[in-house]
């Protein structure tokens, strides 16, 4: 439905993955988005967003090694793809241009 565009929540999720570095997984992403947006975020929403991002090719996932911390349970690691990064930057730039235009208009 949204093609290769980014929805608002997807954008937050994508940026959170990027901000958390190379080897992150759903739990830190959820915490990050929740703190950044200051509203409660469900795990289901994070899974759904990550799945859509992956469908669109903006993130890639791989199974991580088992660590003692989770009692040896596996986790899925996410990483932003170059195209994902490019799309996020594009979006940022569009926003900037519009805000600049608004600022221009206010000044004149």
């Amino acid at each position, binding site marked *: 439905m949204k093609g290769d565009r980014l929805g608002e929540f997807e954008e937050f999720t994508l940026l959170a993955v990027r901000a958390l570095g190379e080897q992150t997984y759903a739990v830190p992403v959820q915490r990050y988005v929740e703190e950044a947006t200051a509203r409660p975020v469900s*795990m289901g929403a994070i899974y759904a967003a990550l799945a859509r991002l992956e469908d669109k090719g903006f993130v890639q996932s791989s199974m991580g090694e088992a660590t003692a911390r989770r009692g040896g*349970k596996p986790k899925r690691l996410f990483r932003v793809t170059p195209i994902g990064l490019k799309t996020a930057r594009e979006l940022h730039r569009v926003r900037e241009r519009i805000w600049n235009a608004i600022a221009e208009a206010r000044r004149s």
Partner: protein
Amino acid sequence: MTPRFDAKPPRPPRLARWILRLRPLGTRRAEVTADLDEVFAERADAEGASRAARRYYHDVLSLWTWNLSGTRLAGDAVQDLSHGLRVFRRNPGAVAITVLGLSLAIAVSTSVFTLFSATLLRATGVSEPASTVRVMRAFKDGIGTTWPYADYVTLREHARMPVEAALRDDARFTTSPAPVRRSPAAGGAPSDETGERVQMTFVGEGYLRVFGARPLQGRILQPMDDAIGAPPVVVASYGFWVRRLAADPSAIGRQIWLNGVPTTIVGVAPRSFTGITDQPPAFWAPFASYHVLYSGSPLTRTSPVDVNLYGRIPPGATRAQAETELSAVAAAAATPAPGAGLTAGVRLDPAGSPATRVEGGGAVLALVLTIVMTVLGLVVLLACVNVANLQLASAIARRREIGVRLALGAARSRIIRQLVTESLALGLAAGAIALLLTLWLGPTLAAMVRLPVTVDMTPDARVYLFLSVVSIAAGIGAGLAPARHGTRGDLLTPLKGDGPAAGSARPSRMRARLIGVQAAASLVLLVLAALLTRATISATRVDVGFDARPLVTISPAFVRERYDAAKAQAYWDAALERVRGLPNVRAASLTLYPPYGGGRAVTNLKRNGVRHQVYSHETQADYFSTIGLRIVRGRGYTPAEVTSRTRVVVISETLARMFWPDQDPVGQTLAPFDDSNDVIIGVVSDAITAHLRERSAAALYRPLRSVESATIVVRSGSTPEALVPALRDALLPLDPRVRLDIALVASGLQNELEEPRIMATLAGALAALALCLAIVGIYGVTTFVTAQRTREIGLRIAVGASRSDVMRLLLRDSLRPVAVGLAAGAVVALLATQLFSGILYGVGARDPLAFASAIGILLLSAAAAVFIPARRAARVDPAFVLRQS
């Protein structure tokens, strides 16, 4: 952040974990569970256990919005459903009536389907049904179904293939020995009157084993059970065990009483095993028990008992090979049948599949199923149309909403999906209610049509499949039509908020079509019900050719091997003398097949290469006067001719007309049409004595030969009921061990009327339901349409139309689609009723009265359904309406 290993860490709520397990997650379950646990542990640390638990629930439930497979269908469906529920809440009355109507329709069709499934479709449970055959006895001039017991013994001993026998009889079942036996002083015979009458099938010990009935409880019959002198044992059928013995495992080994004889239940047959060609009996018992239950001596080769034979074609052999082999064995040893010519051979008919239960086999079964399914389909269709109407109305009312969504770029398919999801929800809700209704309605229906208690009416997988397919199809089907319409049309009109005034030609045409369909479908059902009702009435008026009311029949079941022909003759002579000596008895005579006694014999007469089925009777000389038939021409046979068994024959008027249209048959012989050279000595008036539905009065009467299985017909002066105890008291002393079955011919005739009555009741109930559904539909649509036209009506009245003008306009517009539907329905009904002509007694399939009354009822109901909303609309205050717009 750091997990605490010192104290016991709090665990996520157990219920939530259980819910989590319900969510299909495929390969990702482990990681998701680990993620949720980790989040929970952190939150429990930071925010406290109770808040962490609450959020854990929320996280688990939120997983349902996440779509694993990549499409968004599931999430959308949840959204659509919650939206649909909100929409339905706006109009609870209409939704409730629609859902109730649909669930009634589904419940009724599922119940009727259950009935058919249980009686006709359910597998017989016979292992390898393809190699299971019924052994028929081929004569020169026809096929016999039963074999003398002696032939069974011979065939079983000499044939290579397994041959098994079955004999049906009924017995009185009690769970205690108390009052069943009369004291020997009072006659000594086991009384027929106490206990429940149950069906028994007596079989050879191998029967259950050969046809693959593995015991569900206990054991099946074994060779030792069939040994002479073995204590009587039975294997109960599943249906009887469940319904009469409360599915109690401890019933195995328990003693019951059959005809007052203590008998042990040794096992229960599996639910699937229903016997080969018939409905399951209450019990299977070994032949060795037969004489014990009916107080005689053991069955031997000389016992004049007839049995049905079934066999199993050995692996590797064809049916033809098995037939040849068995014929050779039969030819070498079989007993010649009296009066029917020598046995010419053996014919093996397929048995063991459901289709072989129906007379006429698979073709008849398919026809019956087609008819039943069509009728049920019509009822469900009617209810579906109501759902479609409701959805159409709501689609129109929501044009603004849908228009806005389309304008904002929502895909049409998405909106169609939404509307279909809504009606699917209606369908499923109706299905769920229908399931509950069916559990109650099914047994009620079974009781109504007097299904034997042994027939298993519990819904099986097939019934559940039927129910779900019907509910889902009804939901989707009802949603598609309005959905297609709802998303059509331009985007701008609804946005302008102009309401339904402009360009609503299309939906009204769609509604008209739906109403037409309803009118047509309910007309077909009404016509059918009317025809069957007329047939029932006409069946009660069929001229059977004699007055059944004063007639009583006495069928003594001889302890057979003690009664050869001579002894039987002696018994009859004494019995007739005693009966004739009773006050209130006008006449008494012997016959082989008393009226409506269940038995009949048919012989084929060939004329110009065409076989005609003719009833064949054997009677004493005064039978005609006893039941009240007139000798029309020639004479009846004399008592001397009966005693000497002279080869003479009396024919019925119908037969005389058929075979000797322009001549006097008296003095001719049957030779041109039959192998016998019997001389026709008289013609007797017509009588229908076998089945009313056969309505054929072509019959031959010959002097009685088979005295062993004859029946006394008694003509009473008045009150035949009062005669029954007197007859019993008169005959019992002759031989106390003889079971006397005394019946009123009038009640046999009444039973004959049962079949059309049941059909008429069923069809009537279906038609009443159909009529209600159609009225609800027509009323609902008219209410909606007139409400939409309020502004137009207001305008018309404002510019001078009278209220009666408006009424006339509304009635005409609303009834036009009904009339079109009626015309179409009448055509369909004309074609459809042809299928039923076989069960319509004395009523033409195009009976004008039935058609006229059905159309009349439907038109009147439709007019009433249209009148109320039309009058309401015509009362509208034009000033108010005009101010509103």
